[in-house]
């Protein structure tokens, strides 16, 4: 049985002098298995060609479609409209990140700053000789590294974080997870002291207030509570 659903989408163009922040309401016919990706494209096609939002992969892989769905940050392409019983869905752009227009935000700029802050690359003194076979890595450690490397930088953990919302210099779960990922990586030679230089302050690990919005919302189910507590213990014991 199909039903009518109501989508209220936030609209605002910060670059326009006449644009005022407001919600636009659209009514559509729900189709089976309808995701917000489908719904938003229908809106753009049939009602409002001017509505801005981002999708790339439509499969929860690229991390570009995160938005607030009834206040909760989540991936729009993985959100089924049928999960909303009353059929009313309110969409807002992610907070913290720079608003481009309507539902579209610039997470890239924020993530680039985060990545450069935590120096998100392998630090090694070894020079790779590509004519030789690669060095072997302990499979268990490799597995752990891959596990934490699954982050898609969707920004959901940041938008779900009360600390990040209050202080714009906070590195967020995504940044702390990055630290955990390089710390476990056997190829990275950085010590805890080196990591302390990057996140050993109140905009890093000690700023985290364990509100756990990140843990509850991460679409990749990364063990964020677990890793952040671990990094906190490690950073707190650096001499």
């Amino acid at each position, binding site marked *: 049985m199909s039903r009518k659903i109501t989508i209220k989408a936030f609209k605002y163009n910060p670059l326009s002098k006449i644009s005022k922040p407001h919600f636009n309401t659209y009514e559509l016919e729900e189709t089976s298995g309808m995701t917000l990706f489908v719904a938003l494209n229908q809106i753009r096609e049939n009602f409002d060609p001017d509505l801005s939002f981002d999708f790339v992969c439509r499969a929860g892989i690229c991390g570009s479609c995160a938005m*607030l769905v009834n*206040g*909760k940050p989540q991936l729009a392409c993985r959100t089924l409209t049928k999960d909303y019983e009353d059929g009313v869905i309110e969409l*807002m752009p992610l*907070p913290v990140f720079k608003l481009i227009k309507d539902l579209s935000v610039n997470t890239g700029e924020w993530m680039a700053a985060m990545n450069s802050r935590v120096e998100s690359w392998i630090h090694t003194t070894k020079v790779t000789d590509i004519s030789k076979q690669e060095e072997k890595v302990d499979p268990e450690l490799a597995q752990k590294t891959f596990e934490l490397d699954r982050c898609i930088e969707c920004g959901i953990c940041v938008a*779900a974080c*009360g600390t990040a*919302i*209050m*202080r714009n210099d906070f590195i967020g779960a995504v940044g702390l997870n990055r630290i955990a990922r390089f710390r476990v990586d056997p190829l990275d030679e950085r010590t805890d*002291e080196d990591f*302390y*230089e990057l996140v*050993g*302050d*109140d905009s890093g690990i*000690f700023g*985290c*207030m*364990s*509100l*756990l*919005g990140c*843990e*509850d919302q991460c679409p990749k*189910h*990364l*063990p964020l*509570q*677990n*890793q952040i*507590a*671990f990094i*906190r*213990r490690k*950073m*707190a014991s*650096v001499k």
Partner: protein
Amino acid sequence: MEARIEGFLGKSVEGKKSRLPACQDKAQSLTGLILAAFMVCHMLFTGSIVFGKRAFEGVVSFAEPFGMTWITNFIAFVILVIFMVHAFLGMRKFPANYRAYQAFKAHKIRFGHLDTTLWWFQFITGFLLFFTASAHIITIIFSEPITANLSIARFANLHLFYLLLLIVTVTHASIGTYRLIMKWYSIEGSKKDEMIEKRAKIKKINFIIWGALFAFSVIADIVWLAK
């Protein structure tokens, strides 16, 4: 000299990042833990009135052996110092300005996420405790030796204040001990669902314990009033 340099750069003289944030974070947790533990003992002590004046005075004389009544005043003083350190460190987490306050509040309302909302309660109660708890502790520092009758008189005078203090303190402390676990203990599990389930269990146990202590204290309060 070093303090001047570190305050200017946020780095130690060796050019390393200051270790102070780590110390502050640990101190905030540790002082909070001590205060929570103290609060549990306090609730059990004052609650002993439920078993009669004799029981209460027995507890008092156990805590103040050989009639050394100054022990209570001294402990109250130590607690005040710990409380002030904790308040000072806790303040770092407060919204830094009205904009931050507004942003968090709106986020809390939109998000409807329990752990986030709990922090809001902790912030509000923490703020109230600056005044209410210090008033109470300072009274005890300068108080006469404790007897059941004196306590009854004191309580009867200000019972609404004590009830408010109890609610505010238990709210703050119960959320605090839960957060303490979340901050320092890594919840393990092979699947995310399992971890979230374990967390829910820890949360439940934590709040049941505090809830029971709170109920006990309220009963004790009624008994105090009836005496």
